[in-house]
């Protein structure tokens, strides 16, 4: 494992999409994917996936649980374009159509160790009241053609959205060779294994 002059560093992401909090909706599933810059390449694990459909439990009426595993490793030469996890949550409406209930994105944490993130989820909002009514009636809500746009900052100034829920994700992050390349990501745990940093 010892490399004297590494040119790439590795980022290992383990974790899970724990569940969601959507007070007004039920029977939801979540699609996820990773968005990253040009210098990044996934080397192991899934880049995208879909969870099961879950309902609120009788014991805890506000909690939706997916418990969906995330295991991916990236390699890169440059922290620019640090990967983001993009989530889209879907569920049935009153008429049984599958409609989007929220989009959200969060950066993968940069420091090794355990992290939990609560990702706010929002849907695009039609501007006209008539459009709101017809989209409710026909089940054709405004959607993004590519959910990955929520990971980018350009072109957002013309969109109106409504935030209506949260998805909880937990991460366990490990990095390799970032220190050797001169990058300082702040405090992490004791380094037991040479090269790998974990807490």
């Amino acid at each position, binding site marked *: 494992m010892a490399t004297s002059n590494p040119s790439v560093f590795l980022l290992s992401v383990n974790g899970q999409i724990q569940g969601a909090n959507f*007070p*007004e909706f039920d029977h939801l599933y979540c699609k996820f994917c990773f968005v990253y*810059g040009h210098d990044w390449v996934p080397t192991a694990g899934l880049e995208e996936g879909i969870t099961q459909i879950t309902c609120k439990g009788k014991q805890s009426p506000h909690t939706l649980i997916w418990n969906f595993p995330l295991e991916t490793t990236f390699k890169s030469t*440059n*922290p*620019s*374009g*640090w990967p*983001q996890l993009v989530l889209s949550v879907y569920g049935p409406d009153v008429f049984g159509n599958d409609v989007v209930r929220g989009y*959200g*994105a*969060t*950066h993968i*944490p*940069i*420091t090794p160790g355990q*992290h939990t993130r609560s*990702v*706010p989820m*929002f849907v695009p*909002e039609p*501007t006209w009241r008539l459009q709101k009514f017809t989209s409710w009636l026909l089940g054709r809500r405004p959607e993004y053609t590519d959910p990955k746009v*929520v*990971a*980018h*900052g*350009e072109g*957002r*100034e013309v*969109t*109106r*959205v*409504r*935030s*209506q*829920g*949260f998805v909880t994700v937990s991460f366990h992050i490990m990095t390799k060779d970032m220190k050797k*390349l*001169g*990058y*300082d*990501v*702040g*405090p992490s745990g004791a380094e037991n294994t040479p090269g790998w940093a974990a807490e």
Partner: protein
Amino acid sequence: MGVYSIYRYNMAELHIIGQIVGASGFPESCLFCKWGVHTGAAWRLLSGLREGQTQVDLPQIGEMAYWSHPIDLHYATKGLQGWPSLHLQVWHQDSFGRSELCGYGYCHVPSSPGHHRISCATWRPLGTWQEQLVQKFIGGGHQLRKPDLIYSGADRYRLNTEAMGTVELELDIILRHFDKYGVNS
């Protein structure tokens, strides 16, 4: 390509990776934020967008507006002066599509590496009591002619302002080669 790699190794580098999460404590909902990062002359932006505008959010749960606007900036620098600072303008968009200023705020980008959760307080210029009365009925209100007053202290003593809500940010900072120049952070 060779010149570029020499350029990079001679300079210290800073990565700012994170989000403008949202805002709370404002009298109106339906908010958006115009943001920008201001640096001194020694800093050069290698990649990323140094300014932008978030989407307009109308929250259904609670009163906090969520934007989740991503920030990914890569700077190289020859000196510590002019450390990047983030300046923000929070605006309210009403149902007619008109925009009204809600607050100005600024915060320095953290100088220590790691994860930071920042609450940036905002303020709004205040007019005379007659102007405030008009503003209560039809909206509007004063704006700064030159937005660089948000992050500079030079002529602030002339301003009368009132406190507004806070903007929440989550920023991850990565430093490179700062220790080679003897810098502690």
